[in-house]
């Protein structure tokens, strides 16, 4: 069914309200159309209103692919709800398509009968051609399955902002706020939050004070869009998504990369060690560099190195000199850091390596998400070279795991890898702001003048060696990448010592298992299957398992944030499980790790499409697997 706004009977009285639990909207347009802003604004409004939510941006790989092409489409998805949600949603309830290319790239995800809001101005023959479409979808009937709302948003916007004096391209640019206005009407949201934001961004107190028309016109467009939807009754009714029953407290929205930055800054404050962040830009990790470089007031040193090798090498140098050495990158950059990570293992220095995973192999799909670096960070070094590996499970969890990575690195004197991925790094969710005072101080292993010091003497409990920082009188010593003699740390080639030191390095990391939480089974305790997931798939997998259990299956779910060492009780859980199923966004890396560690048979659900799992897909796979007998 398609509504042509030109001939709708105006009927101001009818104001139906439909209550829905949760809604997924995707704003899609050209890179230039400001869809990210539109999405963020809608998100903030929903957050402030009190919905739970999750978002997922989708940037084009090119900086500015030619306008109107599919390569140039930029999109922003938000899932908001009156209940607790963990994913940005599977199928879309609403798709906003500002041009033909945006429609082509995204229509596949719109649910049957879903709302499709279209700016007719983006569907000229030229647009159709740029999008490489055979015919005009607005005419060829290909959209019959949806509730298509067409309007010439561009033209409507131009008219709306005329009086502000803004003209031409700049006037046209306000169309995203006109669109936002329409959405605000549809979901019955107040405009004030965005009006306020526009004043803060473009108002008299900003660098735009000379150009008051900018703020004015955008506000104008927003209101006009709202009124337009109201008066011409684009929709038969509003929808209402009630407040979610979230834990009480103060919230903010946070993305994974922001949360990583906050976590690192917290670790610095709690350990009394300045952050040295050595990094080389790479998608999707660069925002951590950008974020940290803004916080020099925390004493953070951000060093944009000549390459990833220098980035980690300088961080190791800092760790040697008493800094909280951190480096972050994505897959290709990790490849280049592996040799130096080995040096970190041999010299037993505290160091944090963040890997924001993206699609591989090689340059692969830089802007797409994947979980395919697990085995690389576990095993990608010469010799037996164990180090702890952690993985964040959601955007806000990046905060917790960054703090945890620092705690472990400093307490055990070891490099620690923190795995996140493009999806949680760029995705956002509400974050219940923690009481920073409640976060415990971190212990370090500083050696001090006067004590009897041996570079490789170990703490009886943690097996950590001491941290003797250059500048400390009396503790002068030498370390390096050659095998070390036990205790003294002198260079040693002797066979027994190498075996002993290898054992000590392993024992130290394995011992951390006593210092991390046990694995916890969600869902059916001893059901017909145990699903084991890790990292960024937590939201989709747990939601899918919940749905399956609701649907009568008996499935337990363990989600791992610690990949090395694994939780102490995991082996027992897996050995007792009827069957073990491991869904992951790679070809079976955790499956290899668990199978090899515990010697058990495992079924995998594996996908590498550059996107998160769909809950529906996981659920159906779980049904399929449980229906086929072992």
């Amino acid at each position, binding site marked *: 069914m398609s509504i042509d706004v030109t001939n709708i009977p105006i009927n101001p009285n009818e104001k139906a309200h439909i209550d829905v639990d949760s809604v997924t909207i995707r704003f899609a347009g050209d890179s230039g159309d400001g869809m990210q802003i539109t999405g963020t604004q809608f998100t903030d409004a929903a*957050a*402030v209103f*009190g919905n739970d939510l999750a978002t997922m941006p989708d940037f084009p790989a090119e900086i500015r692919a030619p306008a109107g092409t599919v390569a140039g489409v930029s999109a922003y998805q938000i899932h908001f709800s009156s209940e607790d949600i963990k994913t940005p949603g599977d199928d879309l309830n609403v798709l906003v398509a500002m041009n033909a290319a945006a429609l082509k790239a995204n229509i596949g995800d719109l649910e049957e009968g879903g709302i499709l809001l279209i700016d007719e101005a983006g569907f000229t023959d030229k647009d159709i051609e740029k999008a490489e479409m055979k015919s005009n979808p607005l005419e060829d009937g290909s959209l019959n399955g949806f509730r298509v709302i067409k309007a010439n948003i561009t033209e409507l916007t131009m008219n709306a902002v005329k009086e502000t004096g803004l003209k031409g391209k700049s006037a046209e640019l306000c169309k995203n706020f006109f669109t936002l206005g329409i959405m605000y009407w549809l979901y019955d949201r107040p405009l004030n939050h965005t009006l306020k934001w526009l004043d803060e961004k473009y108002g008299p107190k900003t660098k735009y004070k000379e150009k008051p028309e900018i703020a004015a016109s955008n506000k104008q467009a927003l209101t006009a869009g709202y009124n337009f939807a109201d008066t011409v009754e684009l929709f038969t009714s509003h929808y209402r998504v009630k*407040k979610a029953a*979230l*834990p*009480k407290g*103060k*919230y*903010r*929205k946070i993305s994974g990369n922001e949360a990583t930055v906050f976590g690192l*800054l*917290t670790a610095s*404050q709690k350990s*009394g*060690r*300045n952050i*040295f962040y050595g990094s080389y830009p790479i998608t999707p990790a660069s925002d951590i560099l950008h974020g940290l470089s803004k*916080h*020099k*007031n*925390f*004493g953070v*040193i951000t*060093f944009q*190195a*000549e390459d990833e*090798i*220098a980035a980690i*090498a*300088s*961080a*190791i*140098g*800092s*760790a*040697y*000199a*008493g*800094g909280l050495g951190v480096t972050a990158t994505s897959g290709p950059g990790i490849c280049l850091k592996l040799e*130096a990570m080995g*040096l970190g293992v041999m*010299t037993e220095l505290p160091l944090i390596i963040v890997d924001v995973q993206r699609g591989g192999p090689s340059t692969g799909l830089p802007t797409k998400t994947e979980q395919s670096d697990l085995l690389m960070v576990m095993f990608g070094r010469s010799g037996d070279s164990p180090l702890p590996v952690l993985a964040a499970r959601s955007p806000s969890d990046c905060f917790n795991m960054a703090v945890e990575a620092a705690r472990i690195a400093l307490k055990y004197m070891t490099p620690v890898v923190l795995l996140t991925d493009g999806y949680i790094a760029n995705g956002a969710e509400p974050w219940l*702001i923690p009481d*920073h005072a409640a976060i415990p101080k971190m212990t370090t292993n500083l050696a*001090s*003048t006067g004590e009897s010091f041996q570079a490789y003497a170990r703490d009886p409990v943690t097996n950590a060696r001491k941290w003797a*920082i*250059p*500048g400390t*009188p*009396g503790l*002068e010593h*030498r*370390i*390096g*990448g*050659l095998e070390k003699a036990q205790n003294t740390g*002198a*260079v040693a080639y002797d066979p027994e010592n190498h075996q002993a030191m290898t054992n000590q390095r392993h024992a130290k990391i394995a011992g951390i298992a006593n210092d991390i939480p046990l694995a916890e089974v969600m869902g059916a305790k001893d059901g017909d299957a145990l699903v084991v997931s890790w990292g960024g798939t937590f939201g989709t997998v747990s939601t899918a398992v919940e749905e399956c259990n609701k649907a009568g299956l008996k499935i337990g779910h363990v989600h791992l944030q610690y990949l090395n060492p694994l939780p102490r009780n995991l082996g027992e859980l897996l050995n007792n499980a009827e069957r073990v199923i491991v869904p992951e966004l790679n070809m079976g890396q955790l499956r290899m790790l668990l199978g090899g560690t515990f010697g058990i048979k495992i079924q995998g659900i594996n996908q590498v499409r550059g996107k998160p799992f769909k809950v529906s897909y996981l659920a159906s796979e779980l049904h399929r697997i449980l229906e086929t007998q072992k």
Partner: protein
Amino acid sequence: MTTTPTNTATASPPEPLTRKDFASPTAIRWCPGCGDYSILTTMQGILPTLGIPKENFVFVSGIGCSSRFPYYMNTYGFHTIHGRAPAVSTGVKLTNPDLQVWVITGDGDALSIGGNHFIHALRRNMDVKIILFNNRIYGLTKGQYSPTSGVGTVSPSTPYGSVDLPLSPISMALGAEAGFVARTSDNDVKHMGEVFAAAAAYKGAALVEVLQNCVIFADKIHEPYYGRNERKDNMVYMKHGEPLRYGKELEKGLVLDKMTMTPKTNPAEGETLVHDEKESSGALAFLLSRLSHPEYPVPVGVFRNVERPSYLTAMRHQIDTAQAKNPPSLDKLFNSGSTWTVD
């Protein structure tokens, strides 16, 4: 929240340091007769004269015979991985500015695998002192040719003779904008000491190339110019503000005509080019870096010594002002941006 113990200065031994304070107990593993020995003793002799507490010296090296150096110094030392010492030292110095950081490297370590870190440490004017042991060979891996080996070098990897054109560490450093660039030789301990002291005094990244002899794989490689009897006629000792004279009776001089340098015997008064290590563009230093044996005397001493802004200082300034203006607060951080309350 500085990472340097406050007691540094006070805790250092009151009585003046001596050479033996810097001798480490570790048995030295260089070949008998290796040029590295004299560099080691020279360094151990210079450090006590710098008025820096022993605990504030750090020696960072890569991999190679030369890079074993830190083990033989009784200071803080880090024997890192091949070619990465300049990058590691960058982290050390930026984190703990009170330290005096020395990088010990070889012609392969610095110019082959480590070339990229070498040039970036120099162009950033990172405040570390890079001592490059140039024996024009890969010693530790048993004698393959290096980026400073001459064309035609016969080595295990080039039985037919090498075909790569060599690099000049000095020209490279100047091309990378280095502010302090010098050359000395392992067989002239006094000169070496002076150059090390000048490097230590320089505020910023200093490069010192030490012509070093590998008795096993490239024995006498520098002999034609730095040999006891060759030296006077084949090396020119550069001194700032002094004419570039050389020869047994200093009867020779370097004469500059536009861009071409001509060695001339008994040049007229004032005809000889006067060395200017402060020349701003670095072009004079570069020109001198091009002089090579046998056409020219080999220049030794300081090629360039000009002030350049320090990365460290600028970085510290940004941090200090930021901290002064807005002291760190997690509370502020967490609550920044738009927030909302659920109650």
